[in-house]
């Protein structure tokens, strides 16, 4: 199958590959997998006190399209507010990367990963607030 140039670029030179400390209260970790193909993707965000994603890292074990989708996702969400990052839809990724229909699930995975990282960050923050309230 022919990959688009943008997919090849991201797959060969993925941006923001790596790990953030998952125990850091400002880090949210999203872990998603596609049972239909066996791809697994981890996307992490580091959020500052203004609610802006100041760093994002990913690690994906999967095909070129899955790597490109998550690489692009980290590029897009860096510097964005949580609400803005949440608004990213998989179709945006499909359009940017020219993904063929059989690879659309890769973009869905990336969207799920963003949402799951944000949800994890928020759950952590809520737990911290609760702990603070209890301590007082």
């Amino acid at each position: 199958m022919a990959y688009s140039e943008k997919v090849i670029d991201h797959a060969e030179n993925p941006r923001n590959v790596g790990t953030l400390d998952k125990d850091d209260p400002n880090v949210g970790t999203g872990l998603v997998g596609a049972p239909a193909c066996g791809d697994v993707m981890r996307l992490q965000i580091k959020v500052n006190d203004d609610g802006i994603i100041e760093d994002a890292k990913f690690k994906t074990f999967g095909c070129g399209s899955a790597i490109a989708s998550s690489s692009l996702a980290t590029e897009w969400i860096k510097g964005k507010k949580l609400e803005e990052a949440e608004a990213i839809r998989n179709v945006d990724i499909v359009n940017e990367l020219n993904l063929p229909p059989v690879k659309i699930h890769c973009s869905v995975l990336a969207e799920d990963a963003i949402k799951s990282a944000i949800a994890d960050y928020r759950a952590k923050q809520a737990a911290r607030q609760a702990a603070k309230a209890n301590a007082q």
Partner: protein
Amino acid sequence: MDPFATLGAPRRFDLDLAALEKTHRELSRALHPDKFASASASERRAALEKAASVNEAWRVLRDPIRRAEALFQLEGIEVGETKEPKPSPAFLMEVMEQREELAEARAKKDLDRVRKLAAAIGERMKAAQERLGAAFDGSSRSADELARLLPLLGEMRFYRRFLDEASAIEEEAEEALLAAEANGEKVHA
């Protein structure tokens, strides 16, 4: 299409694959176009179509994942991307860790480690297949009971990805070794 019926196999997960391969070969031979050289056009077409479905049935049944998919589907349980449950966070965490270990072993060219990791995943693949074998054993079970086993399909696909990657690493290492030998370098085993 029912691949079990096409090859005359019992509708169960555990199959005698050697016997089935023989059946496939015999059917293919009987349906070969040479045997229909003097037959009518419609008979030739029918034989061709039958041969294609025999081949497809064999491809499905010899592959444990596709065989399991067929069994679920024949029970009216849909499989595929949107039909199967999402893998649990704990399972994904484990897969991620295993894949990272494998990537690390590859970077370090630690083939022993690669083989050990693959063997461990191979055991889990086997365990998943045993559970499918016990459930799809030819006796009748409720669709609800069988549907609860649907996550096994996704798990097996993750295991297969892992095992494919591990064999690719081993092949890569063997090729590097052969290339080194061809260059007349001293190779330490």
